[in-house]
């Protein structure tokens, strides 16, 4: 069953003569439980695609259906609500808040839910255990290694149990060993049922995914 379906999606930036088409007539579907790798050169529209799926950006044309429901995002707040309920995002630069501890950075994803404080704490600890960073829970991001930061970012992305995990170059800032470690975690999450889409330049990473698509200009 398709988790989401993009049909005839077009997106361009700029105006008039400076208008540059990034995506043109793109059709794509992501099945539930799938681990999709999206490859392509710089400027091919990988991040644009991720932003459209995440509700950060809007397509100029085309239809976006998520769980059989058309996604119509008219305001920034619609996108925020959509992400909160359905999407987890991991980015290359981790996007952690340096003034919050590892525990708070992970728990942050639950602040907008109706969970009690106890439930939040329990769920956060569960994730920290899962990602093997419980011992770092009181540490702050500047005290962490790249791999530990990315685990924390993954923790924040999955703590709400999103239907789809979007990762934009999740290992781009990491060394090979740490990269393998993070991919092991993502693969494990996928096997446990998390659908994900990974934007990458790295063919080794793409090979570990269940499906690979390449965007061309």
């Amino acid at each position, binding site marked *: 069953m398709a988790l989401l379906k993009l049909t005839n999606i077009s997106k361009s930036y700029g105006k008039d003569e400076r208008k540059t088409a990034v995506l043109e007539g793109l059709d794509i579907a992501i099945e539930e439980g799938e681990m999709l790798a999206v490859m392509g050169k710089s400027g091919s529209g990988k991040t644009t695609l991720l932003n459209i799926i995440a509700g950060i950006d809007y397509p100029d044309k085309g239809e976006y259906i998520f769980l059989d429901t058309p996604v119509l995002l008219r305001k920034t707040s619609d996108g925020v*609500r959509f992400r909160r309920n359905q999407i987890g995002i991991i980015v290359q630069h981790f996007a952690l808040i340096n003034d919050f501890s590892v525990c708070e950075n992970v728990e942050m994803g639950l*602040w907008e839910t109706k969970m009690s404080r106890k439930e*939040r704490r329990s769920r956060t600890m569960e994730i920290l255990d899962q990602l093997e960073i419980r011992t770092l829970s009181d540490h702050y991001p500047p005290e962490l290694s790249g791999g530990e930061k990315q685990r924390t970012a993954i923790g924040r992305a999955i703590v709400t149990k999103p239907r789809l995990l979007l990762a934009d170059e999740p290992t781009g800032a990491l060394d090979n060993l740490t990269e393998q470690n993070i991919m092991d975690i993502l693969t494990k999450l996928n096997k446990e049922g998390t659908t994900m889409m990974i934007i990458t330049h790295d063919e080794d990473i793409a090979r570990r995914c269940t499906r690979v698509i390449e965007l061309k200009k």
Partner: protein
Amino acid sequence: MIFFVKNIYRTILTHWKANLLILADLILCALMIFIMLQNYSFAAYEFGRYYGDEGLALTYTITSEYDRTQDIPFYKQSPMYEATKLVKEEIQNSEFWKPYYFVWLSLPRSIFVSELPEDFELQYDPKYPQPGFSDINSILFSKHLMAIQNITIFEGREFIAEDHELSAETVSLILGYDFLPFYDVGDIIIYDGQSAKVVGFLTDNAFLRVFDGDYYNLDRSVILPRMFSHDASTTSDPELFLLLDGGNLAVNNPQTDVQAEINKITAKYGWFPIRCEPIDGSRYINTEVVTQKNIALLLFLAIISSLLCLTALSNILFKRTIKEYSTHCTFLLSGTPLWKINLSIIIEMAFWTGLAIVPVIALSYLEYGRMLVSPLYILGFMGMIVAISLIPVIILNGKSNLDLFMRSRSE
């Protein structure tokens, strides 16, 4: 709720330098607003005191400023004599006030009944308290005086208009309350060949207000409506002298500029200047310029200082928010709505604003022992300044671009 607690706690600690500057700026602003409002309220109080009816003079004395060594305008041979009569008439008939006067006189004890006690005249006589002086104190009351000073009659009647006329054959008399055992209404007293008729008695403990706060008991005084005897052949006109050189004006509207109105009359007839002095309350005219200028200056200073505080605050807040850009984007990315981020900043600023008026309250209690200006007024002004300084911050947050944030270090 958890977001507000965590985020405000975080920003208070993370941006402690900027926050100290914000607090210092707000304290300065609160102090300035406090001083301005304090002074404004003082000035407004003074303004109200002088411009409101309360505290304004209701009674003025008038004194003619003619050269007493030269031409006396009350003498019949004076070239100003006719003008003097017209000036007096116009003052008497003015719509702005009611004129009145009184003159201290004395009547010989011999014209009264012998039953009057020996010390009858001594008890209340302020001018001749020494024993042995045996005249009875009498006071000439002009028209309006009894009504203006609320001097009332116990028995008989008050003076009527005819009583004040010089042409009346019989002089009407009103006696003080202590004369009551010795006289009845209708009794005749003969003095200097002229008969005077008792027409009434004053109530017990009747007082004449001489100056502000200076009262004279009338229980043993004889009240006359005019001079007891009048010699038409004399060169002076004492009746004319009475109002113009030592009279009083009870103004109908306390905001009347009495001096200006009197000046108009004297200028009209080319008469001597007449000086008007309030004998109660305060003068209206001199305070006008001072208080108005003070209030205008305070308003100007308040606007300038508020603008300076506003500019500084807005600048610090804006720079602080630019530093927070990536944090705000991270919040948006993880599902925190923008309005919560903005509300968090507003709550934090409310906290700093509340903290900033603490020194003001302390200062006020230290200086005055209480708050002369309500803290709510100060908070109101501060709130306006903070609200305006938050506008650029709210706009900046509204322009948070997650698309750019996602790409910022990923490609």
